[in-house]
């Protein structure tokens, strides 16, 4: 369609300026695009797409164990999707979340509107939501006796999360941040990440489950098979909940050709501008 429409436009356009404009766009496109882009098929060659996936294509179920690195720890590399975006309420028994929320938190949760989620305004989603609809990676560095593990997220704006694996402790009084202070260790084949020092400005999940700066999160990541990462998260926040509780998420491995792609959320976020038809101008 792209090629046929474009050539048709060139044939039928009356104004020279219009043709010039198309040529300029074409020239910019040729110069500006990277090789993989240029190699992309024309629209008429594309299969019709129904629905579609936002994240990478998942590998088929593979009946083989999780790979190991040279130091014997589990290799977490690869592009993953999912693992922490679902509303906590859905992961608990019916009524359980209501029994866990302190009165102020229950009241606050009842009053929040989905449209107010800071994430929609391109603010970070915190450690739980660094996984979710967007592709993400674990990076173990170095690959033998890693001192750091990073989580790289495609979404938000090239977001990363840093987990210290060198045996250090949490600082005594960390200044609250969006991703907090995370220390990790291996418990057999399970990576355990302990996080404190979180601010209360992000929503824990898409439903606006509240939390406070007292939030202490312990994650247990287990690559249960080649293609699956299980994430058990214990949420302990005496400022918002009556007692600690645990929820479980699952991330799935993308196909070997998967990559995290660029996504700069603040680039053209028209969220909240809904009364304007063309916030950036349509011409």
């Amino acid at each position, binding site marked *: 369609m*792209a090629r046929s429409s474009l050539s048709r436009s060139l044939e039928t356009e009356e104004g020279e300026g219009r043709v010039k404009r*198309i040529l300029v766009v074409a020239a910019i*496109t040729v110069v500006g695009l990277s090789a993989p882009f240029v190699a992309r098929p024309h*629209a008429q060659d*594309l299969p019709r797409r129904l629905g*579609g996936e936002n994240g990478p294509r998942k590998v088929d179920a593979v009946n083989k164990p999780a790979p190991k690195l040279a130091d014997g720890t589990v290799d977490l590399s690869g592009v993953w999707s999912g693992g922490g975006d679902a509303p906590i309420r859905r992961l608990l028994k019916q009524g359980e979340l209501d029994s866990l929320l302190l009165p102020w938190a229950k009241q606050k949760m009842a009053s929040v509107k989905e449209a107010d989620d800071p994430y929609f305004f391109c603010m970070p989603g915190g450690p739980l939501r660094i996984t979710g609809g967007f592709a993400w990676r674990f990076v173990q560095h170095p690959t033998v006796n890693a001192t750091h593990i990073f989580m790289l997220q495609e979404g938000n704006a090239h977001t990363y999360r840093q987990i210290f694996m060198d045996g250090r402790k949490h600082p005594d009084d960390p200044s609250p941040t969006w991703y907090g202070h995370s220390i990790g260790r291996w418990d057999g084949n399970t990576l355990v990440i302990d996080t404190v020092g979180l601010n209360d400005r992000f929503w824990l999940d898409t439903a606006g489950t509240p939390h406070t700066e007292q939030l202490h999160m312990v994650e247990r990541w287990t690559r249960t098979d080649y293609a699956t990462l299980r994430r058990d998260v214990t949420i302990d926040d005496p400022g918002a909940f009556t007692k600690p509780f645990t929820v479980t998420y699952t991330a799935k491995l993308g196909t070997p050709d998967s990559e995290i792609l660029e996504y700069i959320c603040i680039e053209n976020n028209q969220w909240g501008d809904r009364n304007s038809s063309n916030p950036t101008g*349509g*011409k």
Partner: protein
Amino acid sequence: MRMKLGILVGVVFACFAVPIAGHHSWTAEYDAKKPVTVKGVVTKIEWTNPHTHFYVDSTDENGKVTNWNFEMASTPALERSGFSRKTLPIGTQVTVSGFGGRAVLERAIVTSFKGSDGKEFFVPKLGN
């Protein structure tokens, strides 16, 4: 064939009816009760995030031109589905189907679009 397409469109609509995790769900801004079909010419592409947009000049029977703002999914979602910013060049004649904005009808979300050759493309669901 016509019936098949009808079923496909029905399935697409069903997909959109389900709340989707991601950057934001579309129903806060767009109205499922306002299906729109717009014929016109592409005037601008915003190959941007969190979502892509393209703009279409549509002329009514009285010669009045309306510039529509159509929203699609993020660039990663579209790229993984084989779209690129070259899929809809400026000047392309298109027929776009989607749902109108809650506040401004002419700011709509896309479910599918069709070139002048009649081939229809379904857009990945909004969620990233």
